[in-house]
Protein backbone atom coordinates (compact mmCIF):
# COMPACT_ATOMS: atom_id res chain seq x y z
CA UNK A 1 0.00 0.00 0.00
CA UNK A 2 1.33 3.49 -0.87
CA UNK A 3 2.42 5.82 1.91
CA UNK A 4 0.78 8.69 0.12
CA UNK A 5 -2.79 9.34 -0.97
CA UNK A 6 -3.77 12.25 -3.18
CA UNK A 7 -6.57 14.30 -4.60
CA UNK A 8 -4.71 15.01 -7.82
CA UNK A 9 -7.33 13.57 -10.14
CA UNK A 10 -10.12 15.34 -8.30
CA UNK A 11 -8.38 18.73 -8.42
CA UNK A 12 -7.25 18.20 -12.03
CA UNK A 13 -10.72 17.41 -13.33
CA UNK A 14 -12.16 20.30 -11.32
CA UNK A 15 -9.70 22.56 -13.16
CA UNK A 16 -10.85 21.17 -16.48
CA UNK A 17 -7.44 19.80 -17.36
CA UNK A 18 -6.63 16.52 -19.04
CA UNK A 19 -3.70 14.44 -17.83
CA UNK A 20 -1.77 15.51 -20.93
CA UNK A 21 -2.48 19.20 -20.39
CA UNK A 22 -1.37 19.07 -16.77
CA UNK A 23 1.71 17.07 -17.78
CA UNK A 24 2.67 19.76 -20.28
CA UNK A 25 2.33 22.44 -17.62
CA UNK A 26 4.69 20.70 -15.20
CA UNK A 27 7.10 19.22 -17.79
CA UNK A 28 6.45 15.55 -17.17
CA UNK A 29 4.91 12.81 -19.27
CA UNK A 30 1.19 12.03 -19.21
CA UNK A 31 2.07 8.60 -17.86
CA UNK A 32 3.72 10.18 -14.84
CA UNK A 33 0.56 12.14 -14.05
CA UNK A 34 -1.36 8.88 -14.38
CA UNK A 35 0.92 6.94 -12.03
CA UNK A 36 0.91 9.76 -9.48
CA UNK A 37 -2.91 9.90 -9.54
CA UNK A 38 -3.04 6.15 -9.01
CA UNK A 39 -0.55 6.39 -6.12
CA UNK A 40 1.88 4.15 -7.98
CA UNK A 41 4.61 6.77 -8.24
CA UNK A 42 5.47 9.17 -5.43
CA UNK A 43 6.46 12.55 -6.88
CA UNK A 44 9.47 14.50 -5.72
CA UNK A 45 9.03 17.65 -3.66
CA UNK A 46 9.72 19.73 -6.74
CA UNK A 47 7.08 17.97 -8.81
CA UNK A 48 4.57 18.13 -5.96
CA UNK A 49 5.12 21.88 -5.70
CA UNK A 50 4.78 22.30 -9.47
CA UNK A 51 1.53 20.33 -9.47
CA UNK A 52 0.14 22.40 -6.61
CA UNK A 53 1.09 25.61 -8.40
CA UNK A 54 -0.43 24.44 -11.68
CA UNK A 55 -3.69 23.54 -9.92
CA UNK A 56 -3.63 26.70 -7.79
CA UNK A 57 -3.75 24.82 -4.53
CA UNK A 58 -1.39 23.69 -1.78
CA UNK A 59 0.75 20.57 -1.64
CA UNK A 60 -1.03 19.53 1.55
CA UNK A 61 -4.37 19.78 -0.22
CA UNK A 62 -3.10 17.53 -3.01
CA UNK A 63 -1.15 14.93 -1.04
CA UNK A 64 -1.72 13.28 2.33
CA UNK A 65 0.14 10.69 4.32
CA UNK A 66 -1.79 7.49 4.77
CA UNK A 67 -2.11 5.90 8.21
CA UNK A 68 -0.46 2.47 8.11
Amino acid at each position, binding site marked *: MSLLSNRLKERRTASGLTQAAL*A*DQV*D*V*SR*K*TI*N*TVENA*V*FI*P*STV*LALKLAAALETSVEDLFQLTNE
Partner: protein
Amino acid sequence: MNVVAVARFLGNFLVAFGFVTVLFVLMPMFPNVSGSTWALSLFAAAGIGIFVQVIAVAGRPTDAVSAWDEQSKASNQASYVFGYWCVMAVFLVFLLFVLTGEMTADQAFLWLGAPLGIAPALYMVVAFLRGRAG
Protein backbone atom coordinates in the same frame (compact mmCIF):
# COMPACT_ATOMS: atom_id res chain seq x y z
CA MET B 1 2.75 10.53 -28.49
CA ASN B 2 6.20 11.25 -27.14
CA VAL B 3 8.58 10.56 -30.01
CA VAL B 4 11.70 10.49 -27.82
CA ALA B 5 10.13 8.00 -25.39
CA VAL B 6 9.04 5.76 -28.26
CA ALA B 7 12.50 5.96 -29.84
CA ARG B 8 14.05 4.99 -26.52
CA PHE B 9 11.64 2.07 -26.23
CA LEU B 10 12.48 0.89 -29.75
CA GLY B 11 16.20 1.16 -29.05
CA ASN B 12 15.91 -0.88 -25.88
CA PHE B 13 13.63 -3.39 -27.61
CA LEU B 14 16.14 -3.78 -30.43
CA VAL B 15 18.94 -4.56 -27.99
CA ALA B 16 17.00 -6.82 -25.61
CA PHE B 17 15.12 -8.91 -28.13
CA GLY B 18 17.86 -8.76 -30.71
CA PHE B 19 19.97 -10.82 -28.32
CA VAL B 20 17.17 -13.33 -27.77
CA THR B 21 16.64 -13.61 -31.52
CA VAL B 22 20.34 -14.13 -32.18
CA LEU B 23 20.80 -16.67 -29.42
CA PHE B 24 17.71 -18.84 -29.92
CA VAL B 25 16.86 -18.38 -33.58
CA LEU B 26 19.73 -17.17 -35.73
CA MET B 27 22.66 -19.01 -34.12
CA PRO B 28 20.99 -22.44 -34.46
CA MET B 29 19.94 -21.56 -38.02
CA PHE B 30 23.44 -20.43 -39.02
CA PRO B 31 25.90 -22.44 -36.91
CA ASN B 32 28.85 -21.65 -39.15
CA VAL B 33 28.68 -17.92 -38.44
CA SER B 34 31.26 -16.93 -35.84
CA GLY B 35 30.36 -15.56 -32.42
CA SER B 36 32.18 -12.32 -33.13
CA THR B 37 29.91 -11.72 -36.12
CA TRP B 38 26.84 -12.08 -33.92
CA ALA B 39 28.40 -9.83 -31.31
CA LEU B 40 29.07 -7.19 -33.96
CA SER B 41 25.49 -7.47 -35.15
CA LEU B 42 24.26 -6.79 -31.63
CA PHE B 43 26.55 -3.78 -31.36
CA ALA B 44 25.14 -2.57 -34.67
CA ALA B 45 21.60 -2.97 -33.30
CA ALA B 46 22.55 -0.92 -30.25
CA GLY B 47 24.09 1.68 -32.55
CA ILE B 48 20.91 1.90 -34.59
CA GLY B 49 18.93 2.34 -31.37
CA ILE B 50 21.18 5.17 -30.27
CA PHE B 51 21.00 6.82 -33.70
CA VAL B 52 17.20 6.71 -33.70
CA GLN B 53 17.10 8.36 -30.28
CA VAL B 54 19.50 11.10 -31.34
CA ILE B 55 17.33 11.82 -34.37
CA ALA B 56 14.21 11.86 -32.20
CA VAL B 57 15.73 14.32 -29.73
CA ALA B 58 17.00 16.53 -32.53
CA GLY B 59 13.61 16.55 -34.22
CA ARG B 60 11.47 16.91 -31.11
CA PRO B 61 13.58 18.50 -28.33
CA THR B 62 10.51 19.41 -26.28
CA ASP B 63 9.61 15.73 -26.07
CA ALA B 64 12.98 15.00 -24.49
CA VAL B 65 12.06 16.99 -21.36
CA SER B 66 9.02 14.86 -20.53
CA ALA B 67 10.60 11.65 -21.86
CA TRP B 68 13.27 12.05 -19.21
CA ASP B 69 11.03 13.20 -16.36
CA GLU B 70 11.65 11.99 -12.81
CA GLN B 71 9.66 8.79 -13.21
CA SER B 72 11.65 7.86 -16.32
CA LYS B 73 14.90 8.69 -14.56
CA ALA B 74 13.85 6.53 -11.59
CA SER B 75 13.06 3.65 -13.97
CA ASN B 76 16.39 4.15 -15.72
CA GLN B 77 18.27 4.00 -12.41
CA ALA B 78 16.28 0.94 -11.37
CA SER B 79 17.22 -0.71 -14.66
CA TYR B 80 20.90 -0.44 -13.74
CA VAL B 81 20.25 -1.98 -10.32
CA PHE B 82 18.35 -4.79 -12.04
CA GLY B 83 21.23 -5.20 -14.48
CA TYR B 84 23.73 -5.40 -11.64
CA TRP B 85 21.86 -8.23 -9.90
CA CYS B 86 21.31 -10.08 -13.19
CA VAL B 87 25.01 -9.96 -13.95
CA MET B 88 25.82 -11.06 -10.41
CA ALA B 89 23.53 -14.08 -10.78
CA VAL B 90 24.91 -14.96 -14.21
CA PHE B 91 28.47 -14.56 -12.93
CA LEU B 92 27.84 -17.09 -10.15
CA VAL B 93 26.34 -19.55 -12.63
CA PHE B 94 29.26 -19.08 -15.04
CA LEU B 95 31.73 -19.45 -12.18
CA LEU B 96 30.21 -22.83 -11.42
CA PHE B 97 30.40 -23.79 -15.10
CA VAL B 98 34.06 -22.75 -15.29
CA LEU B 99 34.98 -24.59 -12.10
CA THR B 100 33.27 -27.75 -13.34
CA GLY B 101 34.87 -27.46 -16.78
CA GLU B 102 31.60 -26.89 -18.64
CA MET B 103 32.84 -23.52 -19.87
CA THR B 104 36.19 -21.82 -20.34
CA ALA B 105 36.98 -18.60 -18.53
CA ASP B 106 37.29 -16.79 -21.88
CA GLN B 107 33.83 -17.92 -22.94
CA ALA B 108 32.40 -16.92 -19.57
CA PHE B 109 33.98 -13.49 -19.81
CA LEU B 110 32.62 -12.85 -23.29
CA TRP B 111 29.13 -14.13 -22.57
CA LEU B 112 28.93 -12.10 -19.37
CA GLY B 113 28.74 -9.05 -21.61
CA ALA B 114 25.35 -10.14 -22.86
CA PRO B 115 23.34 -9.82 -19.61
CA LEU B 116 25.33 -6.71 -18.79
CA GLY B 117 23.88 -5.01 -21.85
CA ILE B 118 20.58 -6.80 -22.17
CA ALA B 119 19.19 -6.67 -18.62
CA PRO B 120 18.87 -2.87 -18.31
CA ALA B 121 17.40 -2.66 -21.81
CA LEU B 122 14.86 -5.36 -21.00
CA TYR B 123 13.90 -3.57 -17.78
CA MET B 124 13.29 -0.33 -19.68
CA VAL B 125 11.16 -2.13 -22.29
CA VAL B 126 8.93 -3.49 -19.52
CA ALA B 127 8.91 -0.12 -17.75
CA PHE B 128 7.71 1.61 -20.91
CA LEU B 129 4.94 -0.94 -21.44
CA ARG B 130 3.84 -0.52 -17.81
CA GLY B 131 3.72 3.26 -18.17
CA ARG B 132 6.71 3.90 -15.94
CA ALA B 133 9.05 5.40 -18.55
CA GLY B 134 7.74 8.20 -20.71
